[in-house]
């Protein structure tokens, strides 16, 4: 691998580690800076005095700050994300049990968005200035502008309540794959819609830029069929900036997923955090948020790695003579 690329990836790793560390510190700071009696604020009014005392001891809330920080960090690094206040279950376990739902929703939505968005973007680029292109441009903006939870609610309204085509809420029976799939359709669509618009626009502008470049002119000068020029050559070049911006949008996507999960009452990281929030169950919030941050960082790293897969300039050595 090229020295530059290796250095770049190393710096990305460092940044990622810093982000995770930063998030951990921030979460710790939040729990430490809570105004008033920490136990009452974090546990909420439903905690009994005994439980509060036990909690304080366990969490080490009666110990000095730096000791608490150390305890927190070591716990996290060994996989111990704390214990749920209400149920007593380990937070890590709770998070792990709902993660698959969020994964399926999020990556399914991305997949759907790419499947629809890329062809639309290519079409718009190859038919630049046409009516279809302008209509598509407007629709893309519309899709991007409307927040996904609003789309989710409207879809829910139309397809579940009015038309009664698809089931309303929840993730479905764990044993029934078909049922689960049916219940995925609307949430995935809600998440995907905004992204279809985003990807279509991105692909369109990347393609337009690429198609104006000299190497595409070379292909045309040799009479290579336009079909090949567009789909074999230009599209690959256009992927690079597209992936870059997709990577940057992962954060927004996760936010959208949280809201969609809540609208459709689906289990998942978002719901977990939200439900815990409503009852002031801070350990769960803390643990789940941390996991989300780690996931986010990992996805970003993967996106960066995928560059080397696509762009050979990042892989091998420099020019030979």
């Amino acid at each position, binding site marked *: 691998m090229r020295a530059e690329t290796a250095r770049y990836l190393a710096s990305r790793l460092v*940044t990622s580690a*810093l*982000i995770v560390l*930063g*998030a951990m510190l*921030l*979460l710790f700071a*939040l*729990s430490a*800076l*809570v105004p008033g009696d920490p136990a009452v*604020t974090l546990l909420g009014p439903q905690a009994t005095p005994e439980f509060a005392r036990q909690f304080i001891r366990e969490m080490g809330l009666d110990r000095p700050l730096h000791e608490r920080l150390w305890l927190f960090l070591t716990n996290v690094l060994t996989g111990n994300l704390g214990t749920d206040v209400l149920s007593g279950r380990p937070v890590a376990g709770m998070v792990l049990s709902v993660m698959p739902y969020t994964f399926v929703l999020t990556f399914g939505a991305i997949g759907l968005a790419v499947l629809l968005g890329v062809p639309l973007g290519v079409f718009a680029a190859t038919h630049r200035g046409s009516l279809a292109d302008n209509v598509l*441009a*407007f629709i893309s*903006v*519309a899709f*991007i*502008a*409307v*927040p996904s*939870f*609003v789309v989710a*609610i*409207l879809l*829910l*309204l139309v397809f579940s*309540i*009015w038309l009664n085509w698809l089931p309303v809420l929840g993730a479905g029976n764990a044993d029934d794959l078909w049922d689960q799939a049916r219940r995925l359709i609307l949430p995935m669509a809600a998440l995907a819609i905004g992204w279809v618009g985003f990807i279509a626009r991105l692909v369109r502008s990347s393609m337009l830029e690429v198609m104006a470049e000299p190497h595409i002119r070379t292909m045309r000068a040799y009479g290579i069929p336009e079909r090949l020029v567009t789909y074999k050559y230009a599209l690959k070049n256009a992927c690079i900036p597209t992936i870059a911006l997709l*990577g*940057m949008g*992962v*954060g*927004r996507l*996760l*936010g959208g997923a*949280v*809201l969609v999960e*809540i*609208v459709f009452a689906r289990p998942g990281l978002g719901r977990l*955090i*939200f439900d*815990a*929030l*409503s009852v*002031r169950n*801070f350990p769960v*919030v*803390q643990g789940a*948020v941390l996991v*989300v*941050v780690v996931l*986010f960082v990992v996805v*970003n790293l993967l996106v960066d790695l995928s560059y080397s897969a696509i762009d050979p300039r990042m892989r091998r050595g420099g020019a030979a003579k």
Partner: protein
Amino acid sequence: MTALRPLVQVLRQVCGTVPGALGFAIVLVVLGAAIFAPWVATHDPDRLDIMNRFAAPSAAHWLGTDHLGRDLYSRLVHGASIAMAVALSAIAAALTAGTLLGILAAWMPPRGEAAVLILFDVISSFPSLVLALAIVAVFGPSTFMVVVIAGITLTPHFGRVARAQVLTLRSAPFLEAERILGAGLPRIVFRHILPNIMGPLIVLASMDIPVVITIEAGLSFLGLGVRPPLASWGVLIQDGYQYLSDSWVPVVVSSAALAVATLGFTLFGEALRDAVDPRIRQER
């Protein structure tokens, strides 16, 4: 007065395209509703009328009533005020913080600059909603929190642009002249850098308004932002969502308001950017 002419010219260009004109129209409507809410609204948005809940649209209640009998139209109008207030506060905060950081980054030695840039990268790509949840978990929901969170999210935007502008200006000859004349840093910043930064920053600000509106709506929808009974659009959507089986009107109406507002500002912002950036102007 001379500053007004380019403004008029830009606006004319914006309205020259269909999306731009549409966006501008929507922006005017929303701003009008926001500013003149007490006069535009027909009822007191907080006035309960339980007997009249879920009333259909009528002459008395243009868009009907919600689950507590409050006039939907009036609540929508006040929602516009809230959305605009939050958006403008958050943007003002981000503008200030971002500009300061950006200028700082441009003037600092490479290490410091790199640190600021990394900070920008982290903030801009971070799942802000998720962290917002964590913050709210501790400090409790409030409108102020929404402004803070939105402000933080937007700061890198402004910071990067400010930094870029400072970098290009730094080598400009007239700045060299000023420095030779012994002008101090504050004078240079206020007399030269800021006026030149304002243009692109204003375009950026108008493009960021829909972002803030969306963040606020999302958080308020979850009950983590603007607290009811304040009539934020997010709160209205949540109310409508809860009582979806009773009436679909509140949800649809408030969702439409949110969607149209964000769409309008996005269209306007993009048309504004296209009108101001000469490179793009040529491409058309």
